[in-house]
């Protein structure tokens, strides 16, 4: 009984650590986006600096999971939970890396004259951040419906990414001087799209934890 109690406490702590990592990642992503949209280079520097903490946390969570798997030999849902947390933290780490990418592009772009206002980019950013938040919330409360919704939102993100690409290609044809800036903006758009993909992976892991089924690549359990 005592062993069982300690184990469930360990699982609880694991969940909290994953949430902590998610909080830091969200913080990094929103900061990177603000750095990009509001042309704030200080914020971008902060994002680049804060990535190490997230990396360390990922390693720590990975160790935790391995230890639990080895020592407790969990079954059924507990096993899925630990495996799911491992998958989630890999994706969180990648999202944080994308945030760093965005911040680095922002650092470059902020030194150049501003490109015209890009409402599509704002929409893509809002969609990606929303997907991320929903995926984390789905993990937090174990809500598979919310997780499925994240998977469906990914299509919108992909579509926006394509639109942005087309928009910038047109723009580059018209304004040769802005090619470099436009390419960097396309990279940012690509990063955001990748964030959405990772958020989808997080959501898939949530469905895996709760229902024990794989919904990879097709959004349906």
């Amino acid at each position, binding site marked *: 009984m005592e062993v069982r109690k300690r184990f469930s406490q360990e699982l609880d702590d694991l969940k*909290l650590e994953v949430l902590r990592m998610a*909080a830091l990642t*969200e913080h990094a992503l*929103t900061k990177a986006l603000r750095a990009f*949209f509001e042309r704030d280079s200080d914020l971008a520097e902060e994002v680049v600096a804060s990535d190490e903490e997230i990396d360390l946390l990922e390693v720590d969570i990975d160790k935790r999971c391995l230890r639990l798997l080895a020592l407790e030999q969990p079954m059924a849902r507990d096993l899925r939970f630990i495996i799911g947390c491992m998958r989630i933290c890999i994706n969180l780490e990648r999202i944080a890396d994308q945030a760093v990418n965005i911040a680095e592009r922002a650092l470059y772009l902020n030194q150049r004259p501003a490109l015209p*206002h890009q409402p599509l980019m*704002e929409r893509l950013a809002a969609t990606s951040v929303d997907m991320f938040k929903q995926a984390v919330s789905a993990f937090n409360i174990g809500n598979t419906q919310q997780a499925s919704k994240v998977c469906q939102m990914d299509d919108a993100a992909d579509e926006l990414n394509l639109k942005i690409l087309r928009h910038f290609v047109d723009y580059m044809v018209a304004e040769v001087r802005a090619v470099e800036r436009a390419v960097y903006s396309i990279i940012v758009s690509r990063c955001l799209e990748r964030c959405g993909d990772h958020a989808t992976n997080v959501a898939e892991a949530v469905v895996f934890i709760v229902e024990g089924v794989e919904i990879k690549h097709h959004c349906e359990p």
Partner: protein
Amino acid sequence: MFRKLSFRSRLLLSFWAVLFLALLLPSLYYRKTLSEEINADTRSNAIHQLNLAYWLLSQDQPFQNAASLQVWCKTLGDHLGTRITYVASDGTVIADSQVSFAQVPSMGNHANRPEIVQAYKEGLGTSSRYSITLERNLIYAARKSDGGGAIPAGVIRVAVPFLEVKRKLDRLGRNLILTVLLAFGATILISYLFARQLEAPLRRMIRAAEGIGSGDYGKRIRISPGQEFSPLSHAINKMAKSIEKQIHTITEQKQQLEAVLNGMAEGVMVLDSRGRIRTVNPALARIIPHPPASIGRRPLEVILSSELQQACDQVLAGSDELPVQPYNLEISLGEGRAFDVNIVQLRDRQEGMGAIVVFHDITQLKRLEKIRQDFVANVSHELRTPLTSIKGYAETLLAGRTESPDSTRDFLQVILKHANQMSKMVDDLLQLARLEARQQLSEAVAVDVATALNSAWKACSSLAEAKEVRLEKLLPEDPLLVRADAEQLEQVFRNLLENAVKYGPSGGTVRVSCNFGPEGVVFQVRDEGPGIPSQAQPRIFERFYRVEKNRANQEGSTGLGLAICRHIIQNHGGEIWVESPPQGEAEGSAFFFTLPLANKE
């Protein structure tokens, strides 16, 4: 085991025990004395008969032989209804009234029968015993006899059957038992009724006590089942009263506390010793969607902020000895919301350390702070730029380095342009100050919107012609009358149209349309420009706020146009806002403002 029984059963059982003893003991005693009396009576009766037989024997003597004695015995025995035996001194039976003469010699030796032994010793002997000969209980009485004639000296014995006595005794005993049973039954009934009567008030008392126990603290015990119980009922009443008072106090305090918590603008979260949320207040709904659902979870599971969780962990890990230090941190959540969080240790003797987390919403404060900072920076920038130009050109002119009168003229033109710009800015600032001071509209009359729009378009026609921008009016055919100051309405249109032309593409269209809402007319001025970034949208109505900071000073723009529009519309009791991109569009922006309709009188 007795203790396990109910009070009533115990009472009944004791009643019954007492009754049982009270009825049984006297009857047993009575039965015993009676049987003794009857025995004694029978015995004396036997002795009487013996004496009579003895006297008759001595009268009828002498007998010729044993047979005549046998006849005498039989006759007398039949008359007296008893058995008469004559036993010789050596123990042989000579005659017996119940046995035929022929069988007499076969009878056993009677020498050691107790009554005969006693008779030899004391002259008279009695005994009660079962006779094998007659197969019944008998009382024997024997007396020495000297004999005479053919009869040897011996003992004459009379046996009275005990049967009679026993039957009498049995009948008496049966009656007695019946009486006892009857009395027992009657008393059981009465005692049962008594017990029940005693129990009823006790039951009421129990009910009252139960009522108090289950929360009806107003209940009191009014009737006491007996004097012994009155201290108990007093004690229960006193307890109920004190509980009622304390509950009242606690409820009042709780209500006060709840009212304070619910009335607070700050979100409050109470954590228990394990760091889980124990209580939340409704104001927390501004931070988390459904506060009550967060109970039992940890802060990080509810508010995705690792700093908050870390701070809570630190406060909860604080030792008991250290003075309670409020922990202060600032967290920022999505959409630019910022909270100042205070965490205070909470000492709970029963459950160990807890914490109270208070969230002050400082979003507005931060926003105002930012506006103020930006205002100072922007205003100095706006004033300095033209001043620098004026100063530079004036210095060049003074230094006399101009080569031709033409360039001198150009320089002076630039100076004039910047001076005009500054004067326009000062005019706008003054107008803003006036609008701010007045707050309310003094001269609101019915104004035809079309007239105001036309003259506004005329004012910015030069710019529009240069960029080949068209105006598209989508207003109703009938004259549309709104309650407004004509001059100010024209200015609102002029500022919005100017912006639309300025930021829109060359050869584009500016559309003005209107809708009728519950609060009057909603006007829309839509352009085909690049739109306004969403984070800048709430701020464009601020004074001197510019979307693109790095962009060179716009020709003829003071950065005050939208601020003036907002003040005018607010003074008219309307609202102004922007949508960019407008609903259902990919690009452009639309400015909306509302105005009250004029009553058509």
